[in-house]
């Protein structure tokens, strides 16, 4: 590798079509005879379906078909859960369209297929459904305490599973500990909100089907469609065309995808469904939603003795693809970057009558990082230490890597000191601390707080055998094929499935370096199971560390094959050839006939007229890469927040993120990933919350209620990097997609609490809206503890970004 492309801030080749509107979103697909599908959804959180009458709707002009769950009961199967985390986990049947009972608002009950969207929507009005309401189950703690109001009556409990992981002597660690801190934190429910709503098109061709879906996981979707419906996998082709963001929400096998396949089969016509945003807020899987009870034991000098984590995780009504597994990703992560003697993690999965939860950017790791990073600040406050000092006394020092943590993971590399030093310098930490002291002294109505988050995370979700250990059904490898065409141009086929990450650019950079060919000579193919038949797709910050490395390895094989052919043609020994800059040359020889380019080898391979004995005339090479370890990006994030003590309004004054994602393929793309990650993490801290009322109605169904921040709600970020290469792959790369989201939420909340701690505030529940900040302050002034959860969530998710607060 000669490093011409690695590290270069290449402008993306994807952009040309995206900035001109020449895109291929699933909703853009038009086919002759295409029918539109709309779903009638449950208005009840929990009810028995006693009757569905579709006759009147069927009679409308332009309506092709109207179906209820009963019409598909024999063929729709049950949506898959691929991560049964415990032997005795309870997994309910999950019909794509409800047949006899609905268990969350928005669950599909019937559907209309019509010649156009407007006709289909009109016909929904004519469907009559009789419901017999059952009790809504909306509160996890109450759901576990009683056994009468059950989400799934057959189970006799609302508990899906309980997982316990323990390491070290926990009792000894807590016995006579000089310092013990206990806290309860709530990870509110979030809605991932990719900008592109879900859309599915399915075309039948004889007994075979092509599906376009706005999915992150065309390969997983194909596999699961086959297993749910019984249609042979080889008769299914899944295409993920341009996909407008996912953040985990399109890492799913949705009921609508199964039903579109079944509708296409039944009607023999192509069908399309595109959700509205309001429909999506109800029925795209949600994220987070945990109650954490945390207990930390420490020495008087701040050294951690033990950490006990007890998590209640809201599953929602059903277990979807990774629902039970997501919170358990916290098990090896709640210890963060710190050394400790003992650790325990208990996770209880709880059924409620809400939309199921599943992966959302970070998936289990933001929750864990929030827990430990908030606790480190609490420990610092308890001991009257600087929050960075208490971290320094506990973190793994750079000379200690590779380091096996209390949870059994081996962190391969890192340098927490270097990242922190860089962040401190950029942030002007001491200056801000001085200003903070001054504002306190002056009793300024606007107080300044500084929040710290020194995070790490595990990403890649591989090796495969590690997934087996935690009972995930998925494999962790990734596949690549590199084809050298007769003209020397290169096609790279990847099993990753980008939806904004810029793989077409970054993978071409990796290829260009590995083969020594120009960037523009490389074309990356992906996202269509006919074109890229093998892969595990894109999620969990896995693409570059696994998929990118697979490409690199396949390129090495191409060079090895080409070397034999070049040696034959140059009449030299293979060992006498060196390969550089896309050309083989005979060592120590110059001039005509002493070298040939890869393109010339490719041309000779195409004709195969003059070829070495026993060598296949092909340079094309496959590689499947299954890494030996996760990758562990880390970093130090510092947030300065101004908090108006009269209005509760929070303004982020400055935000510094120094991340270590190992070697960088494209710094432009890496910075972009960090920016977007920060925005989503900050949004959890300040703005976003999916709110269900006591009857199980989602009250944040629109973007007016669920507050995705705008440009005006976010600061300018200062980002920088340290580069400690990963040792678990030949490129030294680590994942970057989720780091910003994982790190930033606790940094912001720590800053808010830091601003108010001298007033007696120890916590502000998320999202830290003006109302909640104001209530936390008032409760501290009155010395009256707020109810758990603080202010009741409002219908508008708390009106976070309203300037100046509400009171």
């Amino acid at each position, binding site marked *: 590798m000669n490093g011409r492309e690695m590290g270069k801030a290449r402008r993306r080749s994807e952009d040309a079509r995206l900035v001109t509107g*020449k895109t291929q979103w699933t909703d853009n697909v038009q086919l002759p005879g295409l029918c539109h599908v709309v779903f009638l959804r449950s208005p009840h959180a929990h009810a028995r379906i006693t009757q569905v009458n579709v006759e009147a709707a069927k009679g409308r002009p332009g309506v092709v078909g109207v179906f209820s769950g009963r019409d598909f009961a024999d063929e729709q199967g049950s949506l898959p859960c691929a991560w049964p985390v415990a032997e005795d986990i309870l997994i309910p049947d999950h019909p794509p369209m409800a047949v006899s009972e609905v268990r969350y608002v928005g669950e599909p009950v019937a559907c209309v297929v019509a010649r156009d969207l407007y006709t289909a929507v009109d016909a929904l009005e004519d469907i009559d459904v009789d419901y017999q309401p059952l009790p809504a189950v909306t509160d996890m703690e109450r759901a576990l305490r009683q056994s009468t109001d059950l989400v799934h009556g057959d189970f006799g409990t609302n508990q899906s599973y309980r997982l316990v992981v323990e390491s070290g002597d926990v009792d000894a660690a807590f016995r006579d500990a000089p310092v013990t801190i206990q806290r309860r934190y709530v990870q509110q429910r979030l809605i991932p909100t990719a900008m592109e709503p879900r859309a599915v098109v399915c075309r039948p061709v004889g007994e075979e089907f092509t599906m376009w879906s706005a999915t992150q996981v065309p390969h997983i979707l194909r596999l699961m469609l086959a297993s749910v419906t019984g249609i042979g996998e080889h008769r299914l082709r899944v295409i993920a065309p341009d996909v407008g963001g996912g953040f985990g929400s399109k890492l799913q096998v949705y009921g609508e995808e199964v039903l579109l396949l079944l509708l296409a089969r039944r009607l023999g016509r192509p069908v399309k469904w595109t959700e509205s945003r309001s429909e999506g807020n109800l029925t795209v899987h949600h994220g987070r939603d945990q109650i954490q009870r945390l207990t930390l034991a420490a020495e008087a000098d701040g050294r951690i003795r033990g950490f006990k984590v007890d998590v209640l995780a809201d599953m929602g009504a059903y277990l979807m693809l990774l629902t039970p597994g997501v919170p358990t990703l916290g098990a090896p992560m709640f210890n963060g970057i710190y050394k400790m003697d003992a650790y325990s993690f208990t996770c209880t999965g709880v059924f409620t009558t809400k939309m199921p939860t599943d992966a959302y950017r970070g998936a289990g790791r933001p929750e864990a990082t929030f827990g430990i990073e908030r606790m480190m600040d609490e420990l610092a406050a308890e001991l009257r230490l600087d929050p960075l000092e208490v971290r320094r006394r506990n973190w793994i020092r750079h000379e200690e890597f590779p380091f096996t943590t209390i949870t059994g993971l081996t962190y391969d590399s890192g340098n927490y000191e270097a990242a922190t030093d860089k962040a401190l310098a950029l942030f002007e930490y001491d200056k801000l601390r001085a200003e903070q002291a001054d504002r306190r002294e002056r009793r300024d109505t606007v107080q300044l707080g500084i929040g710290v988050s020194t995070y790490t995370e595990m990403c890649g979700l591989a090796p495969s055998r590690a997934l087996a250990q935690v009972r995930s059904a998925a494999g962790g490898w990734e596949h690549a094929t590199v084809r050298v065409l007769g003209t020397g141009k290169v096609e790279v086929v990847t099993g990753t499935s980008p939806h904004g990450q810029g793989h077409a650019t970054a993978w071409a950079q990796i290829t260009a370096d590995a083969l020594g060919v120009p960037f523009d000579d490389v074309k990356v193919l992906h996202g269509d199971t006919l074109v890229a038949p093998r892969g595990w797709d894109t999620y969990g910050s896995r693409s570059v560390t696994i998929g990118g490395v697979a490409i690199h390895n396949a390129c090495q094989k191409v060079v090895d094959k080409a070397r034999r052919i070049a040696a034959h043609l140059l009449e030299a020994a293979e060992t006498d050839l060196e390969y550089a800059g896309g050309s083989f040359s005979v060592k120590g020889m110059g001039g005509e006939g002493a070298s040939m380019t890869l393109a010339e080898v490719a041309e000779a391979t195409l004709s195969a007229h003059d070829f070495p004995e026993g060598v296949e005339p092909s340079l094309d090479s496959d590689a499947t890469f299954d890494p030996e370890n996760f990758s562990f990006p880390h970093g130090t994030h510092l947030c300065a927040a101004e908090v108006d003590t009269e209005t509760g309004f929070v303004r982020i004054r400055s935000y510094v993120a120094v991340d270590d994602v190992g070697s960088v393929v494209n710094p432009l793309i890496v910075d972009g990933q960090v920016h977007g990650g920060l*925005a989503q993490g900050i949004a959890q801290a300040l703005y976003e919350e999916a709110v269900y009322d006591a009857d199980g109605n989602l009250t944040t169904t629109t973007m007016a209620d669920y507050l995705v921040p705008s440009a005006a709600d976010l600061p300018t*970020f200062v980002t920088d990097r340290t580069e400690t290469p990963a040792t678990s792959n030949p490129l030294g790369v680590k994942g970057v997609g989720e780091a910003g989201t994982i790190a930033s939420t606790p940094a912001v909340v720590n800053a808010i609490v830091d601003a108010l701690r001298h007033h007696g505030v120890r916590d502000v529940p998320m999202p830290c809206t003006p109302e909640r900040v104001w209530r936390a302050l008032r409760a501290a002034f009155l010395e009256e503890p707020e109810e758990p959860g603080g202010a009741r969530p409002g219908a508008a998710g708390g009106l976070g970004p309203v300037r100046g607060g509400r009171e």
Partner: protein
Amino acid sequence: MPRIRVEVDGVTYEDDVEPRLLLVHYLRDRLGKVGTPIGCDTTNCGACTVLLDGTSVKSCSVLAVQADGRGITTVEGLGIDGTLHPMQRAFHEEHALQCGFCTPGMIMASIDLLRENADPSEGEIREGLEGNLCRCTGYQNIVRAVRRAADEMREPARQRPEVAP
């Protein structure tokens, strides 16, 4: 059904439309102008922003009949002869897009922003784009791109093809 006559990206169309037909559905489903996407149903996200007689509107909150007799520019109508509009170029250069779904609306809103204020500050850009949501970029590079386009578009000396609007 009412008949409307509109000019979209330089082409004139005459069509009978239902009075309730949204402009964005007219553009996408009747004219095949699928470069303008739909991101929400409550006019919050701005993905469907187009220029109506040069002023930005969210085409999901305009009825097709309201566009009768008027001119519409979508992202597909920017630039001339394969040359990108300075705003499109700036979005590319500054990496102001990732998934690209908000990008058509973001570009159209940004063009309108500069029409009203040719030299906006960072704060003015952030406030001016408040009606357009992006989930990928954290807006940082979008703000940079609009600044870059503003600088380029104000520069009088260079010879450039005139571009809409």
